[in-house]
Structures are given as C-alpha cells and as structure tokens.
C-alpha cells in the first residue's frame, strides 16, 4: 500500500504540492488527471524518492520513502516508473536495456537476466526486436521497451508519468493496450494521464489535481459523470 500524507513540495519559491493525501491499495489502478503544472507528475517523482519533499510523509508498504535511513535504491526495485520521455539507453540494444537492472541491481546471472528480459519484451510485444538498438524503434515501441525494462524488476507498483504524451497519435493505442493488459493482470498502478477515455476505462479511482492539491477523488463515474467541484467540471469540459 502507498500512503501519502499531507505532502508539501517546493521548487525554490514555487509551492508545487500543497498538502496532498492519498492511499493506494494493492491491486488498485489510480489515475491522476489535471492541467499542466497541477503537481501530478511531481507527486509521482516523490513516491519513489526521485524528488524530495519538505513536509508530510510518503510510505510504501510501511517504509518511509523520505526517511534518512531508507535505502532508496532498494526501495526503487519495487516501484517501477515509466516516463513521458521514454529514456531508452541508446548505446544498449533493446535486450540489454531490459537486462541492465536485473543484472546490476538484482545480481542475476547473464542467462537469468536474459531470460527475464526476453519474457518481458515478449509480454509487451517486442519479441522480434531484441537485438535492435532503440534508435531503430518507433516511439511507441521505445515506450513499450521502457515498460518492459521496469517490469523486469518484478515491481509491486508501477508509476506511469504521461507515458503517451510524447507519442504520435497513431502510436498511443499500442502503449495504452500494454497498460490495459497490466491492469487486467492485477498490477498496482498510478497513472498520470491526459487520456480521459483510458482513465475512465481502466481506473478504480480517479484523482483530479488542481493547483497542487487533490481537488476531487472518486470512482471514474463520480469524477467524469457527476463532478462535485466546479474546477473539475471546467477541466473536463476543456479536455473532452
């Protein structure tokens, strides 16, 4: 379980998160929606400690992410994250991209790591591209590779940060299909997204972010069909 309690985050003088509280249970799919600069992506970065926080606490399965004693490298093995910029490692083949972390972080042998990578890449439909370099892949394929790379660590949680925003429209579908598949398999996911139809379809709950706070939280039906706050309604009107 991910427990976020009254989190405040500043970038210099900019107050990005203003007291966010939220719990995400095992097996749940939570979507974060909201305008640019509303703090959704920053919230994700804080969950696996890529960004620090100034107040409040975040704990993952009871481990305080921002406590000094916490071994972040160890914690991050259990929290996969996929970014908007797919961030392929350009000097490694697709297979090596996925093998890297199991080998270096989990200490798997080359054979074990390769078996894991082949399986995960097959899972996201890239079984034919093992020896290719990322530059030979389309954006959608690179993004699916990034998902396989995160899955290779067998994480308990997956965080997705606007994973389709940088893709050509015709490539969005294949990546969303991969996310749908993961949700059906019971993966616990937090998805920051601008794809409202997708959010509605896969989410158990939807959180609407506005000016660094969760303005409204509820089931997709509640948020999309009968939003309670005028900001939520305004936002949905502007994107739908």
């Amino acid at each position, binding site marked *: 379980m991910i427990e976020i309690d009254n989190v405040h985050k500043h970038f210099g003088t900019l107050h990005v998160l203003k007291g966010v509280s939220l719990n995400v249970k095992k097996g749940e799919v939570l979507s974060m929606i909201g305008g640019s600069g509303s703090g959704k992506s920053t919230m994700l970065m804080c969950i*696996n400690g*890529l960004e620090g926080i100034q107040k409040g606490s975040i704990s993952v399965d009871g481990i305080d992410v921002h406590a000094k004693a916490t071994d972040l*490298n*160890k914690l*991050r*093995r259990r*929290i*996969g*994250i996929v*970014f908007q*910029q797919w*961030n392929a*490692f*350009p*000097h490694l083949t697709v297979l090596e991209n996925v093998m*890297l*972390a199991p080998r*270096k*972080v989990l200490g798997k042998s080359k054979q074990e790591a390769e078996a894991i990578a082949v399986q995960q890449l097959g899972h996201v439909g890239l079984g034919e591209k093992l020896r290719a*370099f990322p*530059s030979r892949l389309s954006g959608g394929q690179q993004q699916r590779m*990034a998902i396989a*790379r*995160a899955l290779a*660590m067998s994480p308990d949680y997956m965080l997705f940060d606007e994973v389709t925003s940088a893709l050509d429209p015709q490539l969005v579908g294949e990546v969303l299909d991969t996310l749908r598949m993961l949700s059906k398999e019971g993966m616990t996911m937090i998805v920051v997204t601008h794809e409202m139809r997708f959010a509605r379809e896969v989410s158990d709950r939807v959180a609407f972010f506005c000016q660094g706070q969760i303005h409204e939280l509820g089931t997709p039906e509640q948020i999309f069909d009968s939003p309670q706050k005028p900001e939520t309604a305004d936002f949905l009107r502007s994107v739908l």
Partner: protein
Amino acid sequence: MFFGASLSWNDILFMLSGAVTTIAITLASVAIGTSLGVLFGLARAGSPWWISWPIGGILDIFRSIPLLIQLVLFNSFNSMFRLHWPTYLVACLCLGIYAAAFCTEIVRSGVTAVPTTTRRAARSLGLTWFQEVVSITLPMATRIVFPSWIGLALGVMKDTALVLWIGIVELLRSSQIVTTRVQEPLLVLSIAGLIYFLMSFPIARLGAQLEKRWRIQ
C-alpha cells in the same frame, strides 16, 4: 643514395628510438590526463559550486600557461626541492596534468549532454549513482565527446616535442641531433614529420572507425 651522402640507417633507427620515447610519453600522459579528466569532469558536472569552481579555477591555470613554461618550472622545482624524480616522470606528470585540464572540460561537456531524464530513468530502476555513471552516463558521454578526445590525444602527442627542453631525447630532439651531424635539416625534419604523421594517422583512423560503428546505434 636517396637519403643523401651522410644520412645512414643508423640515423633513421636513432630517430625511430626517439619516436618510441614520444609514443611512451604520449601514452602515459594521455592515460594520466584521461583518468584525472574523468574524475574532475564528473566532479565538475555533478557537484555543488564550492567543489566545481575551485577545480575549474585550478585547472584553468594549467590550461592558460604555455606548456613549455610549466615543464621548465616543474623541472626546476624538482631540482630545487631535491625531489629526485626522474625527468621522464616529470615530463609525463606535467603533460598529464596539462591534458587533464583539457580533458576535464571535455568530460564535463559530455556528462552534461546526457539527458537528466535518462539518468533518472536508470536511478529509478534501483541503480546506485556509481552504477548509473558507469553503465549509462560514461558510455553515452564517451560517444558524444570522442572526437574531441581524439583531438586532445593527438595534441598531446605533438606537445611531447616540448619535453626536449628538459633534456629528454624524443623524436624531435633525436632529429635535431641527427641534423647537426648530417647538416640536412630539411630532409631530416621531413622524415621526422612523416614519422609524426604515421603515428597520428592510425589514432585518427581508429577514432573515425569507432564513430562510424557508434553512428549505427
């Protein structure tokens, strides 16, 4: 005879032995310069200003003063303070630090050219800072700055000619010795130039070859 009346094979062999010294000093200096350059470059790229600026400032001194002055001063200090370091060591250290000053900036520019998001993605997989630097940042940075580094290595090779001023007989000095004997300065210097070219060319070719291979990726 093609080499003129008095230039013998022994003279050529003497010059080639000077070339071997040139290669040895080049290899040692480039090795020192690159190791220190990677270390300082990483520190310059990823440290707060109170670490980054002093390193940059000190290295600026070595970059700005002509190498010849540094060699002579370093060599004089060696005698004045009775360090008794061999002249070769003085030459390699001096050239090595000089190369490090340039290499640091090359490495820094390469490291800062690696997207932060890519480095974050690696860290998010659980890699430690060191694992990330070794597996992601350095290989990516190497591909970016490799042409500059080849340029530096070739520059160092030519700069080794200056160590003749502290009494080391490398290729240029050996050529001078031969010239004073045979009195054929143009011929001897042409041969020396040809030998420098033959030493540089493979490095430049190797560089071009590697770049071509990396471009495929």
